[in-house]
């Protein structure tokens, strides 16, 4: 069992965790990064059109460029990075944290005075949205749909609808369409004014309707999805559309796997940890940033909010 020691342990090297790790190191704090995947980047790894906008970087970056920037900075600053390592437990004793990591090299123990949890979010799914009906194949969360297409280079269906309230959903829609899947509708519970003009234009060019102010209430099909029932939230009118694929991209909820285990106070209404303005949790010196800290629709906002942590550690 290998043991490591640091002053600030960042758990999760996604778009927020890596960023915070770099910023802390730049301010002279000894940090280590732990990531369960083989590479850093987290949820944005599969995005291309999405633009990362951070105040100190002058122009918006593509996710790939942003990840490359982080990778370079982690190397330049010599930040220890443990990929392929999943933290399964976090113990708090006498103002010292011990995090237990599992990797192919065995169990790793990390000791640190401070811990920053940046384990990201999970995409809101069919059940979070109380979509009724059956549980057939063909219903994916948006980023999983994208990952399957990117990774396996195959079609995940013939006719798809996208349920979204954000630009990530629009990108998922375009990628599905690029992969040769017949895009039937974009369904949004809001108006399209929240969504990127540019992406919307690209979608409309492909003759795809954006149905506004409409929710999905039910899915049908036993083995594979056959249709979904929509309801207009103003008129109450219902409509059934025939699709074999539904990608749900309705934002994120914090990943509470780790934080629920160690007794961090969680807000039952918000489904998020209770945090101070500086993102410190109910356990002193345990911070939670990014999509792990609250329900976000958008990743940029999560990255920019995570900077509040730096104010407290200065």
């Amino acid at each position, binding site marked *: 069992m290998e043991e490591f020691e640091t002053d600030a342990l960042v758990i999760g090297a996604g778009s927020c965790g890596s960023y915070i790790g770099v910023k802390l190191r730049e301010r002279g704090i000894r940090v280590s990064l732990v990531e369960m995947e083989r590479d850093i980047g987290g949820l944005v790894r599969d995005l291309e059109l999405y633009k990362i906008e951070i105040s100190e970087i002058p122009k918006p970056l593509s996710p790939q460029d942003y990840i490359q920037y982080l990778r370079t900075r982690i190397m330049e600053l010599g930040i220890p990075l443990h990929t*392929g390592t999943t933290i399964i437990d976090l113990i708090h004793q006498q103002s010292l944290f011990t995090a237990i990591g599992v990797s*192919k090299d065995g169990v790793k123990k990390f000791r640190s005075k401070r811990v920053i949890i940046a384990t990201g979010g999970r995409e809101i799914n*069919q059940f979070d949205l109380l979509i009724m009906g059956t549980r057939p194949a063909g219903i994916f969360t948006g980023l999983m749909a994208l990952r*399957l297409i990117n990774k396996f280079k*195959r*079609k995940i269906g*013939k006719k798809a609808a996208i349920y979204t309230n954000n630009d990530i959903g629009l990108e998922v829609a375009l990628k599905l369409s690029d992969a040769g899947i017949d895009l039937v509708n974009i369904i949004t519970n809001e108006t399209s004014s929240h969504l990127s003009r540019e992406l919307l234009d690209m979608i409309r060019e492909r003759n795809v309707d954006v149905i506004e102010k409409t929710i999905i209430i039910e899915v049908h099909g036993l083995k594979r999805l056959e249709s979904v029932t929509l309801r207009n939230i103003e008129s109450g009118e219902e409509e059934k559309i025939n699709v074999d694929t539904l990608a749900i991209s309705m934002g994120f909820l914090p990943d509470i796997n780790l934080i629920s285990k160690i007794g961090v106070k969680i807000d039952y209404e918000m489904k998020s940890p209770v945090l101070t303005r500086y993102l410190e949790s109910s356990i002193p010196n345990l911070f939670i940033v990014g999509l792990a800290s609250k329900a976000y629709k958008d990743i940029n906002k999560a990255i920019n909010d995570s900077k509040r942590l730096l104010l407290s550690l200065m």
Partner: protein
Amino acid sequence: MFTEELPKRADIVIIGCGVVGCAIARELSKFNLSVVAIEKEPDVGWGVTKGNVGMVHPFVPQFGKLKSKMVIEGNKKFDEVAYELDIPFHRFGLLIVALLFLQFLALIFAFFYLKLRGIKIKWLRRGRLRELEPLISRKAKAAIFVPSAGETDPVKLTIAYAENAVKNGVKIVLNTRVTGFEIENNEVKAVITDKGKIETRFVINAAGLYSDEIEKLVGISDRKMWHGKGVMLLFDPFIGDMYHHFIAPMPIRLDPRTKGGIIGLTVDGVPIWGPNLVEAKDKLDVGVSRDDIEMIIQKFKPLLRFFPDKWIMKYYAGVRPIDETSWDFVLGPTNIRGFINAAYILSPGLTASQVIAEKIVDILRSEGLQLVPKEDFYPYRKDIKSIRGLNYEELDKLIYENEMYGNIICACNQVTEAEIREAIRRGARTIDSIKFRTNACKGRCQGSRCLHKIIEIMADELGIDISKITVKGESSEIFVED
């Protein structure tokens, strides 16, 4: 582990590999017989068994029925079954609670009634009840405590019965549907399936929801099946410590149709509420509606002072096969010689499965089947080794021996690559089969972070193209081809 090739003949053919069919298969594997169990789905336990709460009931209120006798016996036997087959089982205990004065009166009556029936119970006054369940409603007046009520994992139990049966020589044939019979002089000669014919003298009808259709195939039509749908609600395991027992409101009227559902915990610590009982449109009606969810929340929420019911993680429905006239199990020989029913097994069929299996063996004996005990019957089966519950030294050693134990695939439930590969070696051929065996995709993210990894491991382990990978068998492929 399992096969798709149908043998030419067998001493006994079991139709259906639900918890009942698999329990019978294992029980029969104790004797020198050739036993074949046939299942239409790509895995065992996907019928009524899948849509189950997993409660090992202490009793059912309608005494005098076969099911009431068998459930009590089944409950007693469960420790042994769980030990031999290495399946999760906890006796959480059941609290039947009175909130209203009328319920309180009924509770007193129920207490003496159950005592008379010899059920081990305890009367709990309000103070003691609150000690046991601090979040119980302030209105709670008293409760009956039934310590023997337990919880298991219904599909894992079925898989365990099946694995142990196979180990002892039973053939389990999947993806094969029984479509007819050869009958001569009112006697079974052969079973016909979509994969060919198998000769046999004895057939056990353990087809669950389809046991009426199997009866019709041999010309029996004296029963009518009522389809009773039940919806279950699962909540985030984060709120799994809000209560520690099964809790049920004291029913004021004893509805003969149902025990009325409970609030409970799964063996993985996930709060589970339900089921309700509504008439299903047909056998395939497993859709969940808002009404179902509201019905369940309205019924159970008043039992607790506080419960964040927004944290719904999942919901699903099961359909119970109910013999409309008896509301009881249908067990025994029929007027077709060799055709034996283990049919219409409604709740609490899971709890009673072992007892049903033993009863079927007795019936076969009295029907003239020679039963010679097998000397080398091996009653034990080990579950897939998981990393949950290991201490760090043990875990480190395990990873040293097999580095795939160091690759966590499902972060919600901490399921490793090693477990997923072992599940496939034990016969899992679909995403759902892996889910039921390992708990991967069963956590709060419902597979939205690990599906791609599971697909990759399956394709690699089975040496197949990803286009062949399905969620739940044929027609549920994840990828489509042009």
